[in-house]
C-alpha cells in the first residue's frame, strides 16, 4: 500500500472542501437546519407524536440521511469528475498508485466530509429539537456505512458523467425524490395499505428506517433488513468501481 499517495489524494480533496467551506459545510448545515426550524419547531408542534416520538425528533434521522445521501453523492462525483473535466486526471493515471488507493483517497475524503457534516447537523438539530440516541454505536455504524456507500456511488457517477448535467441528474432526479418518499417525513404506517407495499421497493426506506431505529429503537422495517440493504448497496458499488478500473471505463481509452 502506497500510503503517501493515498494521503496526498485525501489531503488535496479535503483541502478543496476547506477552500470552499461555505459551499461544502455551511450551506448543507443551514439548509438542513431550516427543515428542523420549519417542520420541527414551527409545524411540528401542531402534528401529533409519531410512534411515541415528537414529530420534530421523528424527522431528525431522515433529514440527516437526506443530507448524507445528497452530499456524499455530490462531493464524491465532483471530486473525480473535476480532474476528468480539466484534464488533470492524467497525473493520477500515470502515478504509481493502485486503483484501490485512488478510490481510498477520493471516496475516503468524500465520506469523511459526509460524516463530519452528519455530526454537525446532528449537533445543530439538538439545538432545535430534544432527542436521545438509543444505540449510539449503531447510529455511527449507519452514518459511516451510508457515507461510504453513497460516496462510492458518487464516484461512479463522476466517472459515468460526461457533462455537468449528468452530474446533477442522479442526486436531483433519483436520490432526493427517493429520500422524500422514503419515510423521512412520515412513518410508512401512515400510508394507504397498497402504498405501504410499493414503498418497500424504495431502497432508501431501509436506510432511513435503520438510522431511525438507532435513535429511537423503532423503524418501519427490521434493523436486519436495513443492515442487509446497506451491505448490499456497498457490495454493488464496490463491484461497479472494481469493474470501472478493470475495464478502464470513463478513465482509460
Amino acid at each position, binding site marked *: 500500500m502506497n500510503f503517501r499517495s493515498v*494521503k496526498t489524494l485525501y489531503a*488535496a480533496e479535503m483541502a478543496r472542501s476547506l477552500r470552499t467551506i461555505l459551499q461544502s459545510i455551511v450551506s448543507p448545515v443551514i439548509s438542513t437546519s431550516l427543515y428542523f426550524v420549519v417542520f420541527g419547531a414551527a409545524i411540528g408542534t401542531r402534528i401529533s407524536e409519531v410512534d411515541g416520538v415528537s414529530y420534530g425528533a421523528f424527522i431528525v434521522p431522515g433529514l440527516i440521511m437526506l443530507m448524507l445521501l445528497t452530499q456524499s453523492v455530490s462531493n464524491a462525483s465532483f471530486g473525480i469528475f473535476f480532474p476528468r473535466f480539466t*484534464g*488533470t486526471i492524467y*497525473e*493520477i493515471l500515470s502515478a504509481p*498508485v493502485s486503483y484501490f488507493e485512488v478510490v481510498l483517497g477520493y471516496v475516503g475524503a468524500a465520506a469523511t466530509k459526509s460524516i463530519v457534516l452528519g455530526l454537525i447537523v446532528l449537533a445543530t438539530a439538538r439545538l432545535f429539537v430534544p432527542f436521545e440516541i438509543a444505540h449510539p454505536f449503531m447510529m455511527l455504524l449507519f452514518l459511516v456505512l451510508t457515507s461510504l456507500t453513497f460516496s462510492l456511488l458518487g464516484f461512479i457517477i463522476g466517472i459515468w458523467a460526461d457533462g455537468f448535467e449528468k452530474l446533477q441528474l442522479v442526486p436531483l432526479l433519483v436520490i432526493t425524490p427517493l429520500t422524500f418518499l422514503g419515510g423521512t417525513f412520515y412513518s410508512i404506517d401512515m400510508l394507504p395499505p397498497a402504498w405501504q407495499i410499493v414503498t418497500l421497493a424504495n431502497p432508501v426506506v431501509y436506510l432511513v428506517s435503520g438510522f431511525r431505529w438507532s435513535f429511537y429503537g423503532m423503524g418501519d422495517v427490521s434493523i436486519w433488513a436495513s443492515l442487509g440493504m446497506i451491505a448490499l448497496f456497498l457490495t454493488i458499488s464496490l463491484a461497479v468501481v472494481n469493474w470501472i478500473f478493470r475495464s478502464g471505463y470513463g478513465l482509460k481509452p
Partner: protein
Amino acid sequence: MTVIRVEDLSKVYDSGFQALKGIDLDIQRGEIFALLGPNGAGKTTLISVICGLVNASGGRVLVDGHDNVSDYREARSRIGLVPQELTGEAFSTVWDTVSFSRGLFGKPASPLHIEKTLRSLSLWEKRRNKLITLSGGMKRRVLIAKALAHEPQILFLDEPTAGVDVELRRDMWDVVRQLRENGVTIILTTHYIEEAEEMADRIGVIRAGELVLVEEKRELMRKLGSKALTLHLSEPLSGIPEALADHNLTIADDGHALVYTYDASRPGESEGDPAAIAELLADLQAAGIHFKDLHTRQSSLEEIFVSLVQENA
C-alpha cells in the same frame, strides 16, 4: 543501455481507429529522443500507452526492465509526463500543485527539491501564485515542474513548446539540455522540426501509427541530406559546356547560376568532398567561366521529414 523497450505495440480505439500498428522501439538511457510526425500520426497515443493513460491492444512496454502493466508501480515511478494540454487545478498555488505531484508519486516531502525545481524553471518568484493567474508559458513550466517533482529518470514531453514564444522556447531547450546533463532520459514529441534538429540525439518518424524511421540525427541528416553549391555567374550561360558534363550541374536563374548538387551520403562527402569541388572549380576556370558569388546549403531536417512522410504516403 536500453531504458524503455516497446515491443510490437498496437492500439485500436473503440471507434475502430488503429492508432498504433506494431511499434518496436528502444530508447537509450540518457538520450534525447524526438518523435516526429504529422497530426494524428500516433505520437500522443504512443506516449500515453507507455505512461499508462491508454490501454494497449497488443504488445508490451518495459521501463527499465519493468512491464508497465504487470509491474506498473516500478515502471511509472521512473517516469515524469508533461502533457500537451495546459491543465492544472486553477485555484491551487504553484507550490501546492508541485508538492501534490511529489506526494502522489509516493515520495516523502522535500521542500528543498521542490525549491530547486522551481528555481531551475524560473518559477520560484511565482510559487505563491495561483495557476489561474499565470501565463500559458508559465503554466507549461509548472507542468514540467510537476513532472520533475518526483525526480524521474525518464521525462516525456508531449509538444513541450507548442504555442510558446521564441524566447521561452530557447529557455525550455536549455532546461531540457540541463536535465539531460543530469542523466534524465528525454522523449519529446514535436511539430517543430527545428526543435528536433536543435535538441535530439535520435529521431523517430511516426506516420499513420507506424514508425517509418529511427535514426541518429547526424546519421539521418548525413544519409538523407543533400548539399548544393550555387555559383552566381558573371556572364549567363545558355547550356552546360561540354567540359563540365562530368559534374552534376544544373542551370538556374535563367543561366545566371550553376547549381552543383552532391549527395552527402557518399563516402568522403559527408562534409562536402573538397577534391570534387576543387576539381569543379578548376574545370570552370579552364572553361573560362567566372563567378561573382557562391553559397552552399544543406537540406534541413524539415525537408528530410517532408520527403519521408510523402514517400510513405
